[in-house]
């Protein structure tokens, strides 16, 4: 079930009213599990069995990891849990990628083998909930977390519907305690949740889904596009994927608030970053911190020799790329980010900023050097997005070649406007929306999300909400289209 459907809104309305009419926490949790499985099973009921089975295995693993004392047995149990989880993820997500790669590799040395490819359907959200369940067993193994008090609580934690399919990837240490304590309805947080949802709907429907057809056309046939058009399409893709993915997080966080849960912030104005390392503190925070805590630091982190540190960074980013999908393009995308972070100190990029710092500094109008760093970081991010979005390495290479060579040819600009031929909106409306969105993000970047305007006068606030509501309903592309990150 997608957030942008009437089905979800009906489910949410029914779930919200029923949930708060249930007085006992244990029954509330059971109810949330039922709602979550309906939400997940709406795509394909078979996915529910996998989710349940995966949950069961890790619940049992967590139970024994907490009770066993012998390090050997504990290591063995953790190993089995990791093999199981990563095995499932590997089978569903990477089998065909590795099978095809192996067939090609063997074929290139003259050993022809039939492809081992299988017709495997990728269960939605498997990368998200697998990483979530891994935090549970690893944290219990590290004695940093107590296991769930019962299976119901654990099922509720893992299947919690707002973030099940596309995150934020919640740590057991953050979400499980919330599942296990009584929850009271909180007026202010619920209102805040609704506002964040409204902002998410606006980003997804009015921006991301209206940009998608333009980007799709450009990337589907880059040969017929000029360099400037491809460069523009890449910039639009940067905003499409940001608005799409961060919208999912906004709606998820807002929905969770309605049920008395706090999910972690997943985006913190990443395009105002002044370095790639800052970008990764602001982009998909739940994944980047997961990789830092469970891959980068165990590898030695930065407390090792510079070369080893660089290797750790590269391994982490290559894994990040692979997490996104079984394709060499994603690996290259991760590799580019890893390389940029390794090389960043060479040009003295600012890397001290944290996600909690105000992006772009506190000044309303930034100085020239800040603007330069923001633009440079954004440009580098866009360069990497080319690999992320292109169908293949060759396509990405073609796009880059055109972008680099054609801007200096006058002819390349003559039919620039044709890039909007697939746009669902008039170009001037679309560009106005995009500029308005960027301006709103800049002005409100000291807030968790731009629609936190509780200090404004009530009539003005309601005017903004109403305007956003109607822009979304009127100009939004309500196409039940799924979110980009569902495929990961």
């Amino acid at each position, binding site marked *: *079930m*997608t957030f*942008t*459907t*009437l*089905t979800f*809104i*009906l489910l949410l309305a029914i779930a919200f009213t029923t949930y*708060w009419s249930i007085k006992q926490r244990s029954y509330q949790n059971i109810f949330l599990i039922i709602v979550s499985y309906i939400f997940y099973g*709406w795509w394909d009921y078979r996915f529910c069995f996998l989710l349940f089975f995966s949950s069961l295995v890790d619940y049992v693993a967590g139970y024994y990891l907490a009770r066993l004392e012998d390090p050997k047995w504990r290591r063995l149990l953790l190993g089995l849990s990791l093999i199981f989880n990563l095995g499932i993820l590997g089978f569903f997500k990477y089998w065909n990628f590795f099978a095809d790669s192996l067939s090609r590799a063997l074929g290139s040395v003259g050993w022809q083998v039939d492809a081992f490819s299988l017709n495997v359907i990728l269960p939605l959200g498997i990368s998200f909930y697998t990483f979530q369940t891994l935090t549970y067993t690893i944290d219990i193994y590290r004695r940093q977390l107590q296991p769930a008090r019962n299976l119901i609580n654990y099922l509720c934690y893992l299947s919690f519907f707002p973030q099940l399919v596309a995150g934020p990837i919640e740590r057991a240490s953050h979400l499980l305690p919330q599942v296990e304590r009584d929850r009271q*309805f*909180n*007026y202010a947080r*619920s*209102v805040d949740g*609704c506002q964040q949802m409204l902002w998410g709907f606006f980003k997804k429907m009015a921006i991301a889904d209206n940009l998608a057809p333009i980007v799709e056309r450009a990337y589907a046939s880059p040969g017929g596009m000029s360099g400037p058009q491809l460069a523009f399409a890449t910039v639009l893709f940067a905003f499409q994927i940001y608005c799409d993915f961060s919208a999912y997080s906004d709606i998820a966080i807002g929905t969770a608030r309605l049920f008395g849960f706090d999910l972690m912030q997943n985006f913190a104005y990443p395009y105002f970053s002044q370095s790639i390392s800052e970008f990764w503190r602001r982009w998909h925070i739940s994944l980047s911190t997961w990789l830092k805590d469970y891959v980068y630091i165990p590898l030695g982190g930065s407390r090792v020799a510079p070369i080893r540190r660089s290797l750790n960074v590269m391994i982490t980013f290559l894994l990040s790329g692979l997490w996104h999908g079984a394709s060499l393009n994603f690996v290259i995308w991760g590799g580019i980010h890893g390389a940029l972070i390794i090389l960043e100190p060479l040009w003295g990029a600012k890397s001290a900023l944290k996600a909690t710092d105000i992006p772009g500094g506190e000044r309303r109008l930034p100085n020239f050097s800040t603007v330069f760093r923001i633009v440079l970081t954004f440009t580098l991010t866009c360069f990497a997005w080319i690999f992320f979005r292109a169908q293949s390495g060759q396509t990405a290479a073609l796009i880059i070649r055109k972008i680099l060579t054609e801007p200096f040819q006058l002819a390349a600009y003559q039919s620039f406007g044709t890039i909007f031929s697939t746009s669902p909106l008039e170009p001037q409306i679309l560009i106005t929306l995009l500029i308005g969105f960027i301006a709103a993000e800049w002005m409100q970047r000291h807030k968790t999300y731009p629609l936190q305007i509780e200090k404004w006068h009530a009539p003005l606030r*309601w005017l903004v*909400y*109403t305007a956003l*509501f*109607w822009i979304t*309903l*009127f100009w*939004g592309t*309500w*196409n*039940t289209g799924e979110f980009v990150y569902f495929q990961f």
Partner: protein
Amino acid sequence: MSNLKRFVLRLAGFFSLQAAVAGVVLTPYMINYRDVVANGFMAASIDKQAELKQPQSRPRLVLVGGSSVAYGYSSPLLKDHLQYEPVNMGLHAGLGAEFMLREVEPGLKSGDIVVISLEYENFIGFPPGAKDVYDVIEADWRNVQFLPLSYLPSLMDEGLVFLGGVFRRSVASATGDLERKPYYQRNSFNNYGDVTGHYGLPQVTEKIASEGKTFNFDPQDVQYVIRSLNEFNQRAKARNIRVFYSYAPLMKKVLTENQTQIENVAQTLSKSLEFPILDRPEDVAYLDSAYFDSRYHLNQDAARQRTIALIDRLSPHLPIAHHENSPDRP
């Protein structure tokens, strides 16, 4: 007042405000839009259903399917050569086979003949997308009665798509930005339900060129539709109504491009359908020039040609057909 109650009231306040905004801003547009809908293509369902309910002195030949049926027959010709009163119920493939069958079933009477021609898209992806279903409900809300339960998930999923579309189309209809093709209107149909509004108009090649070319049938979907057709036939048989199947007139070029896939479907249909199939896919496939604006929409001459083919193939099955009164061959 509890916090929860306060919250619900505030939420209700917000949506009431939006309803008021909609009322004030959109009502003038909606009045105009209502008119557009009442005269739109889908509103022809009202006339078709009324025609089906009309008492007739002789049994009817009811043509069922999507727009390929609406565009694909000349009912006056059928009336002249068969002793049956034609009722062309064809409207839109996007309504799906189940809707089409449910729509005609209550109006059928003992002795009627039903000829079903489903576009190949009806065997792909089930249930169908909700857009066209919403459009037909928008034209006449009583069409809800023909919705099978299996359509509900996609209708719910696409409910907001429809709502947004209503607002956009309302404004566009008042500002003159809503594209209204004269041959896609309620008055483009004749009294029998055939589309005739395009007669004499030149071919619209751009639309044909923009249509997808390949079919990817899902065997499960094919079986599902066959099951629905057979169940319909069973119920019809019990009421002394005979059912036939005739293939949709797909453009020859597209048929050739999908030869293997379509042959597989045709084989499954011949094996599994429990009522007669009158032709083969290639019998009703025509050259590009026979189509108006889609790979299914025949022009006047081709519709006549197809009608003659139907008369020829159907006549032997009909006890009261006038075999001697053969139509002129083109």
